[in-house]
């Protein structure tokens, strides 16, 4: 602000100064150039201003020096201002840098403190954790010892109970055994008494049985004697009846034989008459057959004659057909060969005829022999180059020679490339 105001003052002062100088200079130049001006325009009046040129120059010089000194002062002040500004800026930057350093230091200190705090906390936490773990471990050991002691006491108690139970069981078993022995002795005594009683009963029963059997035997002998007498009487009666029956049978057989002889004689007579009739019939049939065969033979001869005639005609037709077919075949061969030659002259065999290749190419042609489509079916011993060469040979041969007879035309062509 101060510098702009001093600029304005300086500008005003310099303006005044320059105006003054201009006036003085005009006056001076006019003074110096007066003779020339007079020569150029003598008619116009000259208004002379009388001044001391030396004095004026000194004044001007003094003013200029003053001005220069003032300008130098202004320049010095400006430079000082710039230097001051630079210093202030440097100080500001230094202050900022220091502030930043301080902040950075504080941040680092804070970080260090934080880190230390965290480290302390971590160590404390670790220590607490270790203590907690130790306490837990001790508690666990104590609990484990208690548990083991309880288990041991329980085991002892159970063992005592088991021994007591075993002792009671042994006593009970002994009492039972003694009771059982006593009962067995009583049972044996009772059985012995019963056996004696049963033996006495058994002897009495045997005696009574022997008496009963003797009585039965005597009765049986009596009954047998009666049965034998009855059988003898029955046998005599049966023999008389058998003799009577034999006599009656002989009579019946004689009557039957006489009847059979009569029937046989009648049958033979009938057969003889039948045979005679059949012979007559056979002879008639033979005569008829002979007549029929003769007619048939005549018919066959006629048919054979007709057949031979037909065959002759067919042979002639067949010959004609063969001639035609042979002609077609010749045409087909010529056509086939001319197609082959056309393709052969265009096939550039990349193997140079090494002979170890065999390719089959299928093509389709139009009625006028234009090749419409080519594809390799199989190509053994070759590669893509060989395949392209055989396909190109067929493509380049288009249009093929036309079929000499429409019956020979075939849209599908199979080319076998088989260099020998």
């Amino acid at each position: 602000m101060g510098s702009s105001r001093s600029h304005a003052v300086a500008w005003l002062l310099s303006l005044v100064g320059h105006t003054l100088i201009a006036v003085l200079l005009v006056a001076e130049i006019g003074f110096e150039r007066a003779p020339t001006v007079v020569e150029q325009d003598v008619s116009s009046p000259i208004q002379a201003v009388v001044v001391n040129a030396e004095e004026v120059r000194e004044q001007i010089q003094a003013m200029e020096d003053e001005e220069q000194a003032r300008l130098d002062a202004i320049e010095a002040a400006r430079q000082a201002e710039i230097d001051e500004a630079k210093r202030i800026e440097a100080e500001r930057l230094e202050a900022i840098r220091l502030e930043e350093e301080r902040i950075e230091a504080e941040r680092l200190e804070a970080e260090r403190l934080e880190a230390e705090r965290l480290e302390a906390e971590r160590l404390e936490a670790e220590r607490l954790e270790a203590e907690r773990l130790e306490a837990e471990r001790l508690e666990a050991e104590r609990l484990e010892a208690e548990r083991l002691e309880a288990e041991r006491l329980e085991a002892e108690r159970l063992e005592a109970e088991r021994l007591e139970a075993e002792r009671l069981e042994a006593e009970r078993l002994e009492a039972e055994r003694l009771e059982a022995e006593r009962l067995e002795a009583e049972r044996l005594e009772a059985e012995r008494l019963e056996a004696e009683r049963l033996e006495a009963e058994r002897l009495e029963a045997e005696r009574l049985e022997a008496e009963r059997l003797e009585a039965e035997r005597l009765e049986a002998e009596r009954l047998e004697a009666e049965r034998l007498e009855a059988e003898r009487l029955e046998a005599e009666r049966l023999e008389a009846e058998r003799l009577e029956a034999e006599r009656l049978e002989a009579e019946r057989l004689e009557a039957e034989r006489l009847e059979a002889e009569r029937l046989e004689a009648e049958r033979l007579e009938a057969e003889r008459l039948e045979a005679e009739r059949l012979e007559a019939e056979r002879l008639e049939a033979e005569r008829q057959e002979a007549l029929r065969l003769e007619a048939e033979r005549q018919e066959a001869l006629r048919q054979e004659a007709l057949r031979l005639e037909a065959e002759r005609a067919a042979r002639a037709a067949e010959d004609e057909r063969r001639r035609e077919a042979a002609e077609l075949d010749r045409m087909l061969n010529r056509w086939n060969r001319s197609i082959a030659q056309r393709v052969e002259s265009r096939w550039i065999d990349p193997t140079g005829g090494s002979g170890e290749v065999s390719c089959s190419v299928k093509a389709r042609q139009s009625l006028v022999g234009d090749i419409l489509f080519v594809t390799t079916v199989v190509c053994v011993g070759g590669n893509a180059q060989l395949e392209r060469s055989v396909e190109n040979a067929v493509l380049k041969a288009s249009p093929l020679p036309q079929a000499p007879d429409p019956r020979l035309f075939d849209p599908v062509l199979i080319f076998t490339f088989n260099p020998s």
Partner: protein
Amino acid sequence: MTGFPRFLSCFVLMCTLVVSTAANAALRIEIKGGVGGGQPIAVVPFGVEGNVPEDIAQIVASDLNRTGKLAPVARENMISSPTRSEDVRYDNWKILQVDYLIVGRVQQVTALDYQVTFELIDVFRQRVLTSVQYNPRQNQLRRAAHKISDAVVEALLGTTGAFDTNLVYVSVQGDTLDARRFELQVSDSDGANPTTIVSQSKPLMSPSWSPDGGKLAYVSFENPRRSAIFVQDRYTGQREQLASFEGINGAPAWSPDGEKIAVTLSLRGTPDLYLIDVGSGNRFQLTNNPAIETEPTWSPDGKFVYFTSDRAGGPQIYRIPADGGPSERMTFEGKYNASPAVSPDGKLLAMVHQLGKDFRIAVLDLESNLLDILTRGKLDESPSFSPNSEMIIYATEESGRGVLGAVSADGAIKLNMPLTEGDVREPAWSPTLP
């Protein structure tokens, strides 16, 4: 006819019968043979936006032609030049009897950045088989073309391509002894872009790739009185001396894990094989035989080192477990078999085989033990397999000058590599590059 094809025929006949039953009637046509050559493919000139210094389609067509299994059609026969699949009029290509079509575009994005897009199209099925976009720098445009070739080979032939790889070889320039310069050159797999990475007046020999393709080991006679084996970063040129002992320092061969280099040293008088640990420089003597043991090369699993030895009189190929042990003779046919190279799939052993007075490249099938002589030159040497095991690069002579030849591992395809002037020797095919 052997039993196997007869069985095949029966099988196909059965399948055909099944089909014909399903199809009711069908005309059956037997194709007894085809025509030779590759599958026709059209590599249409790529659409170009901006300044494009390479003809991508031309590089791809040239790569594909070298497979022997694909036959790029001449540009002048093409009826139209589509640059994307939507613009393809299939009838145009069917008339040309072209099986496949490659269309694409190259666009200059910034001064040195490009965008290359291609589509591989099946003409008769009217289908895009593969479509890829690359973003090469200007000096990688050829590489992008080789990547396209690899992608096409993979899609059409079902094998991994090896066009995006490099060759290293020794080239001798100058006719007189005084003007002679030995150069180690790295080129693209098609011989283009040769870059000299070492050039000196003293001999250079036996370059060998590190398994990641980033470094080369070779023998140099630049030091007075002693040969030395160097390991050099192919990109930065930074190099270290691996060995320089009294006598022979030769034939470095990098192990598949990149940790060791097998070399030939003559520390005890006669040449023997040693393994040098690349990290520590420690060495381990692998063979100890009064005969000459040299030209080590590794089996792809790193378990064996194959080498040439004359312990039986003439040079023959042997192998020894890489951690030592008894060695085992591998070649028995002929009196001279040397310079072994095992195919990366581990199935074949390539070598130089003497037939009469001629030295030719042969391969031994390691499973059946059958030897197959692949080349017809008088002095063919230094066979080296492509990383897909399909091709072998070797040095041969053409009108008295050393050139590079390439032959397929089955002998069906033979090419001469169009290389720069000079006498070219000892080629080595790089592994697959990252």
